[in-house]
């Protein structure tokens, strides 16, 4: 490995992260790069929703479920581990939290994510968020600016099996399946 020492997946790891979200300022195309942590890359976007749109936003949950059921690889390019969409109230306002854990630096694949969401019609969930740029379809920098302004960096991340990518997990599980099949055949 040229960049980082080989991470030890057998040893659980935690990382406390400075308030800015990074240790050392490294410039990405759209702003500072947030570091890979034991829990991989990720973001937590918190934004206030426009009044009266809560049900519409919840509908998007079903829409994504249906999209993935029909096209399991629809979001494959994003190298996601998990997505969590949450709605919660603070006072009279409702907020949307979009948490994603993935294996690639978000700065790198932002436009691909925007294009994918557009392709599967799950993009417009953002249009129910206050301050979201109206011209986001043609203005990736404005989309990214919104995301970055509403990104709340973690101050602690932990992983039981640190730095392991979704690809590696799937590879290991495939190997395990092949191995148990082989053992079955040897009975």
């Amino acid at each position: 490995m040229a960049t980082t020492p080989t991470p030890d997946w057998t040893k659980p790891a935690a990382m406390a992260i400075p308030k800015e979200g990074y240790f050392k300022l490294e410039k990405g195309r759209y702003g500072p790069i947030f570091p890979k942590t034991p829990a991989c890359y990720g973001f937590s976007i918190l934004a206030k929703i426009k009044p009266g749109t809560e049900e519409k936003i919840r509908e998007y949950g079903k829409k994504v479920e249906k999209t993935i059921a029909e096209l399991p690889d629809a979001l494959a390019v994003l190298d996601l581990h998990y997505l969590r969409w949450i709605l919660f109230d603070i006072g009279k306002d409702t907020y949307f939290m979009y948490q994603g854990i993935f294996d690639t630096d978000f700065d790198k694949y932002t436009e691909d994510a925007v294009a994918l969401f557009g392709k599967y019609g799950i993009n417009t969930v953002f249009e129910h968020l206050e301050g979201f740029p109206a011209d986001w379809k043609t203005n990736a920098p404005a989309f990214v600016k919104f995301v970055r302004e509403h990104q709340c960096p973690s101050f602690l991340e932990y992983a039981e099996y640190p730095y392991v990518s979704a690809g590696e997990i799937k590879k290991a599980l495939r190997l395990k399946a092949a191995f148990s099949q082989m053992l079955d055949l040897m009975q």
Partner: protein
Amino acid sequence: MLEFDDIQYFLISRPRALAARYEFLTFRQPAGGRAWLMGIIEKVRSAKGVGSNNADSRWVTVAFTWNGLQALGVDEASLATFPEEFRQGMAARAEILGTTGANHPDHWVGGLASPDLHAIVVLFARDVAERERCAREHKEYVSQCAGVEGLSSLDLEAIPPFDYAHEHFGYRDRLSVPVIEGTGEVPTPGSGAPIKAGEFFLGYPDETGLQPALPQPEILSRNGSYLAYFRLQEHVGTFRDFLRQHGKTPEEQELVAAKLMGRWRSGAPLVLAPKKDDPELGKNMQRNNDFNYATMDPHGYACPVGSHIRRMNLRDTAENMERRRMIRRGGTYGPPLPEGVPEDGVERGIAAFIGCASLVRQFEFAMNVWVNDPNFMELDERDPIFGTQDGTYDMTIPKRPIRMKFKGLPAFTTVRGGAYFFLPGLKALRYLATLAKDA
């Protein structure tokens, strides 16, 4: 409908030029810069004026940095509407591009990293004699324009044999070229559908089907493009030593060269000719780009996942590829290094322009991810030909039963300079030349 009578010919037509000269200029006074521009506009041809069988003997292109637009007197409000990456310029974006170490702007030549770089004149000429004639004429002209000075220049010549485009390492070039929708050109098999004009020219719908907002005023930006310029030195001696170190026979050495590129030097793609070179395939434009990766070579046993062409065009193994296409122009500079001659220390390489509608989305993405991101495809590698290399990265060659690796790739290339330019339409050139405001 593309306004062929306004768009500069540069990214649309490709006249047959065997020599070129790039002149990098600075404007010490806005009025001088505008006077220079006014006098040269008549030599700048539109796409309509330059067909592929154009009979001219020289072709002139003019483009400006953001600092150059400012130096000509474009007002601050307009300047602020240009995208941030263009405003900052290529040198300021080095970390993002991955042009670090020996490729860093601190080492660039020709004043290209300087804020004094304001304009470039690209002269393509039928032959060297015509290039020399035009260079003398332009030198004379610049000397008459008060406050206009040359920062540096670069002479380019095609290298023999002249019957096909290739660079100093010997690879056949111009095999995977995007076709712009509306030009009437037909893509070669395997090259995908024509790409919407808005991916290359401002003022047209792009692949989203929508038209992005234009920098202001529209007369300045419409029909313009951004150009990313790179002067890339090729270390031919290092490259040939590497082939010899990793291949015992000439055939093995050719295979090493092919694995680095993803194509044999003849142009034949490894996906279609995995074991043995096929020069006939290499030169056949109806066949040499007609392949994919997802079904024909998913694991890279033929064309390594980390090879140059597979990193730079993922074809059917990535999303959103139609939004990352770019048009390349340029040529080779420096004398060819004859076979069997050791490295002579003379600088030679490629000096090229990458034309697009969004530097951050197209060019910077390609540099940041495809060329220089070690995490690309979880390879822990960089582009073997163009990536920033210092001997610390390997290249994996998928092979059955066990993959092999080229350990510690040396730098086959070094970035010696670069810049971001705006390539205006002809009306925009006239607008710039007649700006009333004098800063």
